[in-house]
């Protein structure tokens, strides 16, 4: 399995490189990040524009910039992915893309991890329950909720949840939930406990929104998977041998039915990080999603590339983890 993992990781390098080249060219031709500066009113001095061009290495060709961005050779020490430097930003010398990505990744991770854990937990519970009570009222109700969450646009679902949070606050007369940001604006006087509860109050609504979008998908998979297993011969055999229903469900049915869920969850991690863009936008979190939106808006080539590389790496790793988990969970699969 180690050899397989190494092979997969090595194979991922050209994939990421090809993706980076394609993205770099697409971003580069999408627009001039200095266009507004060139047409500013009143006009910007020529040397200021030239300084901005030098800062962004736009005094060099696209090919040179790509090689520079990849290797950092002939740069000013602020660029070169292989050296761990993401390059200069349109937002000026003080904006460190690498630092921003690191900080924001942690913000997004906080949102995504909690939402995913909750989504998976809830999906397993409801999916199994729906399968065990197929065509019951509860099954229909959970199916309806699942499809509702699937059908609703994420931004709309998030907006409704936000309105619901405000309504709850107004009913109880306290700030239980907050609708913007990962924390209150002024936390200087907060104790550690107050900071914790403040963070939790800001976390709840966006987590709920992200969780429901993930839950809807997972619960349908879990229900289908469980139904297939319950209808299989070995389950009938287990029951025919007189095993108690709880043991059949827990030891034989659920373990098998969780296999697609585990692999799907690994892939969903990558998808959720990307999917957090809308949630972060609606709830004004300064995570990776917000970073991406800002970078695209500003034609900030190196910032967009940094985000894409991170996103691409996560997808590659998530795919690998999903494949490896297959082998762990299903003894019939072995990677030689």
């Amino acid at each position, binding site marked *: 399995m180690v050899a397989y993992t190494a092979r997969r990781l090595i194979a991922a390098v050209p994939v990421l490189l090809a993706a980076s080249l394609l993205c770099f060219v697409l971003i580069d031709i999408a*627009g001039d990040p200095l266009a507004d500066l*060139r047409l500013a009113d009143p006009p910007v001095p020529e040397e200021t524009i030239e300084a901005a061009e030098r800062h962004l290495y736009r005094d060099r060709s696209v090919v040179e910039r790509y090689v520079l961005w990849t290797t950092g050779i002939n740069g000013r020490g602020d660029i070169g992915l292989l050296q761990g430097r993401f390059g200069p930003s349109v937002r000026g010398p*003080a904006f460190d893309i690498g630092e921003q990505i690191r900080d924001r990744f942690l913000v997004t991770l906080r949102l995504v991890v909690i939402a995913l854990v909750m989504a998976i937990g809830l999906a397993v519970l409801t999916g199994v329950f729906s399968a065990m009570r197929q065509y019951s009222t509860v099954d229909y109700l959970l199916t309806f909720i699942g499809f509702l969450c699937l059908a609703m646009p994420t931004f709309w679902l998030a907006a409704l949840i936000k309105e619901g949070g405000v309504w709850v606050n107004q009913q109880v007369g306290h700030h*239980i939930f*907050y609708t913007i940001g990962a924390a209150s604006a002024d936390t200087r006087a907060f104790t550690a406990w107050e900071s914790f509860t403040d963070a939790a109050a800001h976390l709840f609504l966006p987590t709920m929104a992200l969780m429901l979008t993930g839950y809807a998908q997972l619960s349908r998979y879990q229900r289908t998977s469980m139904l297939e297993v319950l209808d299989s011969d070995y389950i009938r055999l287990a029951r025919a041998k007189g095993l108690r229903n709880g043991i059949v469900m827990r030891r034989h049915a659920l373990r098998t039915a969780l296999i697609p869920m585990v692999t799907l969850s690994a892939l969903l991690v990558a998808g959720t990080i990307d999917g957090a863009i809308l949630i972060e936008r609606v709830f004004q979190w*300064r995570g990776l999603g917000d970073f991406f939106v800002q970078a695209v808006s500003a034609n900030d080539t190196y910032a967009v590339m940094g985000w894409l590389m991170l996103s691409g790496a996560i997808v590659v790793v998530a795919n690998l983890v999903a494949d490896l988990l297959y082998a762990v969970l299903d003894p019939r699969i072995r990677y030689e």
Partner: protein
Amino acid sequence: MSRTATLVALGMLVAGCATGGVEGPGEDVDGPGEGAASAEAPATEAAADEAASAGFGDCDEAPNTCNEGPRADGGSMTWVLNTRPGSWLAISPEGGSVYTLQALHGIYPHTGQWEPGGDEYRFNLDLLAAEPHLVSEDPFTFEFYLREDAVWSDGTPITADDFIVTWKMSTSEAEGHCVGCRPRSSVAADAAASVEGSADGRTVVITLKEGEADPEWIGWFSAHSIQGGIVPAHLAAEQGFDVDDPEQLGQYFEWLNETMPTFSGGPYILVEGDLENQIIKEPNPNWYGDDAATLDTLIMRIIDDEGSWLPALANREIHGGSPPQFNEDIVRQLQERTDVYTRVGPGPAWEHLSFNLDNPWFQDVELRRAIFTAIDTDDIAQRTVGGGFPDVQPRTNHIFSSTSPHHIDVVTPTGQGSGDVDAALAMLESAGYELDGDTLRRDGEQVGPFRLRSTSTTVRNTTMELVQATLARLGIAATIETTDDLGGMLGGGDYDIAQFGWSGSPFFANGANQFWHSESGSNFGGYANPEVDELATRAANAASLEDAAEYANQAAAIVADEAYVLPIMDSPVYLFVADEYVNVRDNPSSSLRGVYNNEEWGLAAQ
């Protein structure tokens, strides 16, 4: 139930897990906001018994004083900025935005600003000992006089040295004052031969180069200047920079650009913040002015999703904002709230249609006139923004809004914008065009089709559709193409008819020069008229505002007659604020908008 306990309970419900409840701090939702002072706090202003004009009901009649009222001591307020400031120094290209100026207003001392009505310029007599004085017209020399007790927050006096450093940072490298400074504009600063101090640094003497004049000299170092005020000189030495060394001045420029100012020469001082989330201001303990800020904290919070404002306002996470773009849906929802004051009015920017004269068809002035005559600007204004702003009026001068004392209607007499299609067709017929079925032709050749281009906003999309329909009535086919890169589109001349906006200001003298001078980089459509060039140059270099206005109006009249640009309307803007605050009002004469007087904001005294 406490916030935490409710969170946990709801979490249990959702996640299906069980855990214990815990206690945590709760805050009133219906109160005056986060950390706001008690409504029973005593009024501290002598004017507490004066009649207050709560709300914006009288803003049309009294734009400079509406929503005025006595303030209570203390309280907190959170104001929305809908875009991030790019840096901490508004002179730099990345920091050069209204958002930086708004975020830092009250930190950098300035010499004055326009009042909301647009007809009164208020000198900052907290900083200035007297109104500035024009000493000489040749060479053009003027002086600012500083108060002796004007100091930075560390107690260092504000002197001419600060003005000199600010000026040098704003000049281009060719002037030799600074190497590495990256001013976003150096036009004004480069015109100065010297900025010097006298009277122990309490008088600032500015002398322009020979042959240069500036009718708007009162605006030097004002809140409307590219820095929005002046930067401190003495901090450079503390940071190890010699401001007399051009290279080290450039390094000081970058230091200011990258470093959150913890100094202040204004009524507020920044105590915490970043360029991504929020900036927290508190009253400057060394404020030397007459009226101090009463709010304990003023938070400028960055929320770039408009849809988030209303829930946040209802939740009292924010208390007000004055965004630059009009959004009818948001305005309607705000107007439905009874706990919020909302004001909609004409803003500083104005929308217009502009021909690209590189298109051979538009070399014919009669075709241009006919098209502009057929377009109904009043109809466009009503259909695009009339729902939220029924009082919207077509704009009738390129340089001056209708509230300006210099305004002259140069558009209506031409018949342009009237929507008179019959008159337009008659003009075309006289000029040799003929309507062949549904197609306009000249000498048998089809006129057009033309490309109508703008950025994709609700207002502009609707406008483009209306213009397209009007052109169809003249027999001219047109396609609508939106762009995400307005700068590239205009700069590359990639359009036939473009709709976009210009920012207006009571400082107008350079407007004609910028819009229509044949050598201006902002004259995107390639208009060239020596007479207009001459008038525009005269306006920019006039000795007085009256002279400048006369030249600008003459140029505008010529441009209107030649149907190069058709003003449509002043883009409406809106301001909203929770009703527990006073002295908050819009200032469409300033890019600072509502923030222009943020030191006067406060909780209403009971």
